[in-house]
């Protein structure tokens, strides 16, 4: 049993092969032109016919599935129609997903292509967290709700927390803060495996500042800028998503990991601002959970969580009662391995894979 995980980024496509035990067999980063319609062709060119025969399914990361997609979804006409219906909620990511999935299916007509939606973990987010302070009829009509954007890492954090609790023979971690340290970082408060709060919003702009995304803003700032004629909505969209965040505070491109480590003075502003926002999000998460059993760091910079842990222990040591005991776990697996797991489980549930000829 083998699964091929495909993750298309801006200029590269990461492809990885996993066996039935979730062991990573191989992986490559393929350059491409960024066109989602060319993903299937580029992957097919790389994957030899022997390799493709050996693979039982393809899994590709899909950024947005709204509340419609709550699990892996196999790509077919019905899925495409459903995606078309939710496209107005997030036109760009849904459009990319549809084009990528179609191109993969065209390139590998005999293989199931599964879509792993990042938002599926948050499909049942309670209304009190998902809604904004606006007319709910308007929000329903325009499909406005908080969704969260790193669902697979948060889902994996739940499993990592369970493993850590088992390993350390501590009581079950039922109240978890999952801190995903990706270029667009996100914190989720998870109770008994279900999210109750998340910093990400309707778009990934909201929440903690990212490497290039602004994070929380007073809404009137954007309106004031438009009103002044300094920038238009399109330019502001660019500022909020691509020119803001940590790089704006550091004065140039920077990684979240470098900001967390803060090993030179030029990063101090970005570091202190980000840490303050994180502390607030942690406190909000603990209030949402009504306590804390564990913190799980994940994402490509999960290792930087070790620096954060020191600061968090100090701050929470003051804010929380001494009787509150909480542990820390580091989930350093790559996202491709996280995506492979549910696909393998799904394949196993489907029974023995018929041998291909």
């Amino acid at each position: 049993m083998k699964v091929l995980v495909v993750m298309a980024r801006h200029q590269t496509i990461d492809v990885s092969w996993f066996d039935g035990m979730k062991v990573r067999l191989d992986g490559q980063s393929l350059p491409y032109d960024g066109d989602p319609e060319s993903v299937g062709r580029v992957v097919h060119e790389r994957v030899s016919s022997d390799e493709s025969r050996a693979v039982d399914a393809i899994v590709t990361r899909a950024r947005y599935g709204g509340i419609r997609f709550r699990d892996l979804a196999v790509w077919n006409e019905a899925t495409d129609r459903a995606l078309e219906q939710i496209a107005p909620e997030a036109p760009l990511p849904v459009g990319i997903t549809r084009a990528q999935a179609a191109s993969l299916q065209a390139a590998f007509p005999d293989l199931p292509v599964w879509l792993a939606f990042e938002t599926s973990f948050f499909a049942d987010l309670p209304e009190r967290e998902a809604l904004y302070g606006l007319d709910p009829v308007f929000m329903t009509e325009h499909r406005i709700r908080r969704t969260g954007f790193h669902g697979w890492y948060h889902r994996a954090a739940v499993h990592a927390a369970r493993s850590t609790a088992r390993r350390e023979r501590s009581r079950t971690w039922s109240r978890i803060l999952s801190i995903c340290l990706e270029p667009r970082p996100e914190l989720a408060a998870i109770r008994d495996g279900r999210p109750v709060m998340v910093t990400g919003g309707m778009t990934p702009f909201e929440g903690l500042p990212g490497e290039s995304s602004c994070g929380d803003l007073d809404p009137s700032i954007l309106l004031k800028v438009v009103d002044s004629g300094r920038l238009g909505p399109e330019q502001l969209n660019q500022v909020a998503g691509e020119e803001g965040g940590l790089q704006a505070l550091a004065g140039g491109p920077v990684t979240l990991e470098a900001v967390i480590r803060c090993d030179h003075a030029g990063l101090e502003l970005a570091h202190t601002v980000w840490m303050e926002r994180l502390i607030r999000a942690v406190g909000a998460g603990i209030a949402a959970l009504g306590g804390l059993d564990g913190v799980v760091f994940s994402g490509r910079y999960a290792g930087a969580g070790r620096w954060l842990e020191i600061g968090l222990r100090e701050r929470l040591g003051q804010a929380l009662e001494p009787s509150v005991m909480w542990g820390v776990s580091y989930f350093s697996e790559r996202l491709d391995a996280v995506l492979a797991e549910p696909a393998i489980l799904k394949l196993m549930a489907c029974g023995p894979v018929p041998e291909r000829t």
Partner: protein
Amino acid sequence: MRVLVFNCGSSSLKFRLLDMPAERELAGGEAQRIGPPTALPSQIVYRVGDQPATRIEPMANHADALSAVMRLLGETPGMVPEAVAHRLVHGGSRLDTDRQVDEAVMRDLEAVRDLAPIHNPPAIDTLQACRSAFPDLPQVVVSDTAYHRTIPVSAATYALPRFMREDLGFRKYGFHGISHQYVVTQAAAMMGIPLERFHAVSCHLGSGGASLCAVQGGRSVDNTMGYSPLQGLVMSTRSGDLDPGLTLRLLAHHGGDADRVESYLNRKAGVLGLSGRSADIRDSLNPSGSIPVQERAQTTSQVYLWRLRKYLGAYLTVVGRADAIIFTDTIGECVPDVREAVCADMECFGVRMDARLNRTVHPPCDVAAVDSRVRIWVILTNEELSIARSAFRVLAPSCAA
């Protein structure tokens, strides 16, 4: 010293005459329906000593209202003010301390006029009229943002490009500072803790605006409101926090008309937008009507309380070892359900409420359980007294000299 405090609304002028430093109220009231004629005439509702009264006065603008109030006070011996203090909602970075008014302050006031388009212009116009009519009367301007000047850069900075932070001046200012400062000072005094060692979260929950303030050593270190009073909690008609992407989508929906979106988010969102019926959270906490109406009311109260609870947890963490949570203003003082809901299940922060006390409260009162490390105070705010204290602090040295 008799200090006359003016608190300007868009069509009203509240006033209070206080004898300082004894803090004795001599007179007070409100000039109502200032502006173009309406179906009902402009009037001043007031009391001098213990005598309540109403006087019909034509008041086309705030300058007329000021003159009427001064005439009214002048009719009673011993009621002539010796100093005037004006409340300013948004002092920006220019007026981040309480200042005696002079030419330089007037220039700064003009520079911040548009920062709060509804509140600042009438306050500045009233001040200007007062200065023209009574040039020898010392005047002080006290801003709601001044208390928050101690918010550190780490909390005041938005992750925006430098030109937006520095050239356009976008940063967190924080609001309701006069009220937060008052209740924090009162709570510290009642707990017998020196202000410079007092840590707390102050919850100013008005029937209109609302904000939380994180306080360390008696100083504001964070406030839920931001550059404007729109950010933060869900308020009566204000949305509070919004995804920046959502703000941009609303702009697109309204054809790029920023004024329209701003008006919508300030006047038709929040509790009013969520409930569709009432801007008062009390109506959603105790709903009546059809099942769909009640369900919508329930959603409204849940969203309102949840946002409040998250910010309370955030600020208890920011503050560190909090001594107290303080509830004030209309909702904070009068709605025990709100206090109970946001303080429930917060034992991890050392917060335990005495449910019985909370329901029978007569402010000022501590409604925390005996074994609660963090005390929970309900304190009536008194912004006018806080302004008079600030004015007295500013003027007392020059009077003594």
